[in-house]
């Protein structure tokens, strides 16, 4: 029998830091913690911890999965930087996934994943999550949270953090294998404030 592939799953797009070591689509070791802008201190310690708890060395990993946002710009960059450098250094495949889809995948029903983006706005995405798979209802976007919820026919389950279900994410086709690891970058969904201001001036 073939051994199921070992993958490291990382998401740091919100205040919730998630690191998991998966065999196939089943978690072997998981770590999550709610932090305050301190993912940079904890992420690699947790990566080290789940690998050693799982009894593996980094080169035994078969791939890295990373949430690429949208979410906190600095937060998501920490996860994506680590995932990119790990995958590139180890010469292993890198899979990217929406951090909002990742957050939704752990629960069932009509799920609204959202990350606060200040002034009533949020990065949000609406997903229908079933027992074995999930699909997008409304694409990830940056928008007014209250107005968006008002426009929905039924009340969704609102998620602001959560652990991933790799079965559902894979069955729903949410994992994208990166063709070129160098080119992987966060999905910010918004240009920088400086660029937006410059555009509005001209």
């Amino acid at each position: 029998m073939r051994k199921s592939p070992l993958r490291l799953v990382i998401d740091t797009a919100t205040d919730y830091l998630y690191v998991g070591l998966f065999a196939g689509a089943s978690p072997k070791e998981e770590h999550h913690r709610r932090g305050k802008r301190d993912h940079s201190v904890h992420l690699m310690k947790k990566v080290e911890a789940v690998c050693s708890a799982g009894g593996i060395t980094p080169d035994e990993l078969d791939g890295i999965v990373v949430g690429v946002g949208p979410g906190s710009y600095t937060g998501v960059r920490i996860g994506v930087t680590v995932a990119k450098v790990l995958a590139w250094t180890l010469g292993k495949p890198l899979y990217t996934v929406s951090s909002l889809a990742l957050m939704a995948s752990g629960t069932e029903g009509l799920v609204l994943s959202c990350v606060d983006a200040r002034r009533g706005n949020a990065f949000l995405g609406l997903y229908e999550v079933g027992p074995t798979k999930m699909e997008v209802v409304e694409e990830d976007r940056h928008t007014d949270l209250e107005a968006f919820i008002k426009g929905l026919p039924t009340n969704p389950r609102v998620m602001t953090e959560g652990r991933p279900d790799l079965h559902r994410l894979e069955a729903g086709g949410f994992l994208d294998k990166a063709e070129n690891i160098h080119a992987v970058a966060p999905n910010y969904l918004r240009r920088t404030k400086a660029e937006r201001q410059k555009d509005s001036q001209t």
Partner: protein
Amino acid sequence: MKVLAIETSCDETSASVNIDGKRILSNIVHSQIDLHQAFGGVVPEIASREHIKRITVIIEKALEEAATAKEEIDLVTVTKGPGLIGSLLVGVNAAKAFAFARGIPVVGVHHLAGHIYANSIDHELRFPLLALIVSGGHTELVIMQDHYRFEKIGETADDAIGEAYDKVARVLSLGYPGGPVIDRLARKGNPTYPMPRITPPTKYGFSYSGLKSHMINLIHKLNNRKETIRPEDMAASFQKAAVAHLIDQSVRAFRDHDAKMFVVAGGVAANSHLRERVEEAFQDVPYIMPAFEYCTDNAAMIGVAGYHRYRLFGEEEGMAMNGHSRLDLT
């Protein structure tokens, strides 16, 4: 020992490979200056976004140019501060991830330690050593009694010298960054405009706000009187006064501390007038100024400093290392 170094504290993404903190095998620097020029200064979020886009490509190039495989690297060193926090975090996390993947130690380096150690790339440092640190964010005098023992004896009470250059360049509509444009222009002019003599705020300290205000007022006054301004003479006058202050304070500190060597560190170390004045003022004692390529931000200097740090103190923080926008030089 083969060292991989990473520097992302501001708007340069850089990686370098050296042997034993001595032989630089590669030093790749990707500058983002074109991206930030349109905004008249570095935009932190744009800088961070660029760093993460480039980081693995730049490391790969550094290894390639050094003809070194990832497996041959024994130590990773990285700038952990001070600097733009979003930018620093890309480098720090990249360094930790590389070190973890390869099972090797990682060491964090103070950015200014890097600038000082840029001087040890082609020379042997001698102690006690006096370092003049001059850049867009710093104007400081540091005494080193030995490797990696830093004691700050003076710093600017207000603006860094690079800030003053940027401001004066803006008032004269010369563009950004101000240092190189003023230096270039000053070479075509003469210091004909009267400048105030700067009073040091402390024994070995610096002050640039007075000179900066003097320049702004002078330019306004001349404009109001509809007198033509000779920008090259203006640049030469400002540069002469700004550099004289650096030299005066450095000479005083050097004498008082019985230093054995004088080094200049930081982006402003590339300034041609400063280099000439250092050669004159320190002609009787050993001094070093970094080669031009090692004046501005680069990973080579971080690799050299990191090698010495590791040699003296070992790994220290390892995977718990963080980036710091403010950080004391220790």
